[in-house]
């Protein structure tokens, strides 16, 4: 049976790039079923935190464990259960939507025949499946990248600004998708500046500023007011 986990724990995690402190002494636990909003101003350390949880960036100090297993010990097995959608979309523009999904499905040991058509349908790109990604609009690429992120049914889903370039309908579809993922036991972390979309979607909010975790609390309505009070009042 493949490796799986039901929580991700960051314990006193810091990351320095030379003398610059990107993340400083962050402790945070994400549980199955959570949709955690990672909020904070530009340069707060959100992308570095996502990079560390994705095993792409090594913490300078502290530990990250996946169901109790340190990320450094069993990297490949842990990565099999992680899906990442970053600022850049991790798509090959020269290849078609189908070729991109086929490649990433195979990379994760999936049988493309069973998952690629579903993913194309999920992205609403069945009709454009053989077109090069370079011919797609930003919103179409974003939808395709989200399907690429989820194609291997990851346990931990790390999304950095997933709503960029999406129209209202696509935002609703993506939000519903994330809720379904969490309801099925996924751990979803969404870094976003779009507080209106995050309001009502996230179940917890972790607010970071200058690399430090300012708040980790249950999200309630009026997210923007809470965010302003914490970030601008801090």
């Amino acid at each position, binding site marked *: 049976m493949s490796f799986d986990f039901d929580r991700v724990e960051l314990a006193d995690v810091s990351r320095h790039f030379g003398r610059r402190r990107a993340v400083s002494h962050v402790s945070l636990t994400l549980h199955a079923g959570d949709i955690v909003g990672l909020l904070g101003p530009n340069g707060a350390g959100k992308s570095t935190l996502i990079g560390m949880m994705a095993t792409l960036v090594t913490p300078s100090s502290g530990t990250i464990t996946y169901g109790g297993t340190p990320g450094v010990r069993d990297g490949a097995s842990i*990565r099999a259960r992680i899906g990442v959608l970053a600022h850049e979309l991790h798509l090959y523009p020269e290849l078609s939507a189908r070729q991109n999904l086929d490649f990433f499905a195979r990379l*994760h040991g999936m049988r493309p025949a069973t998952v690629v058509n579903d993913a194309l349908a999920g992205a609403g790109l069945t009709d454009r499946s053989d077109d090069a990604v370079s011919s797609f609009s930003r919103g179409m690429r974003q939808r395709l990248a989200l399907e690429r992120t989820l194609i291997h049914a990851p346990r931990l889903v790390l999304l950095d600004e997933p709503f960029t370039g999406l129209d209202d309908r696509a935002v609703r579809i993506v939000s519903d998708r994330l809720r379904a993922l969490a309801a099925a036991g996924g751990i979803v972390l969404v870094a976003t500046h779009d507080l209106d979309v995050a309001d009502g979607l996230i179940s917890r909010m972790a607010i970071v500023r200058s690399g430090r975790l300012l708040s980790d609390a249950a999200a309630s309505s009026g997210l923007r007011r809470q965010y302003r009070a914490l970030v601008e009042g801090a």
Partner: protein
Amino acid sequence: MFFRIALLVLKKDFAIELKSYEILSTTAFFAVSCVAIFSFAFVKEGQAVEDAAAGILWIAIAFAGTLALGRTFERERYGETLKALLLAPAPRPAIYLGKLLGIVMLLFATEVLLVPMVAFLFNAPLFDRPVLLLALLALGTIGYAAVGTLFAAMLVRARTRDVMLPILLYPITIPVIIAGVRGTSALLQSPPDEPMATLWIALLGFFDVVFVTLSLWTFEPLMTE
């Protein structure tokens, strides 16, 4: 798993290249131009300067290789797809091996054009010992590309990557280039010095084992920030 991922990465690079032939055409054009320009300088009245053919063949391979390495990893930089590869649930050295195989195949394709051109322009009997020449080219290309692939991957996020790649790559790969040039020169002597060529081939084999092993070993720590 390891070789499946390496082949998958190779197939993906091949599929992208088939869409445009961009890297193959620019690399081949650059290498051919390089040899043509050298032929104007080193061939006088139909006679080439002694040993020039071997040196020019390997200089063209090295320069074209640098171009191919830069362009190949530029593709992975756009869209940060290299990160997506590193997120695969596979041993990260398998990603390195896949990229290396792609670069080696690209350089082999360039050499298919280069070798007859050098033989013709420099009146060099390169095809008298085809098996030994093949061994020199194959092992030299693998050694050069092994180091180049590692450095190009490391530099993919660096702003000065275009400058840094040759600065790092050429000093480290000097043993490979020297072995390639000396081995090819031995083949171009009349009669061909087969024992000397074989010695350089053996040295190239040794360099390849060292460079590929070190690169596979260091790829993961070097690619993790």
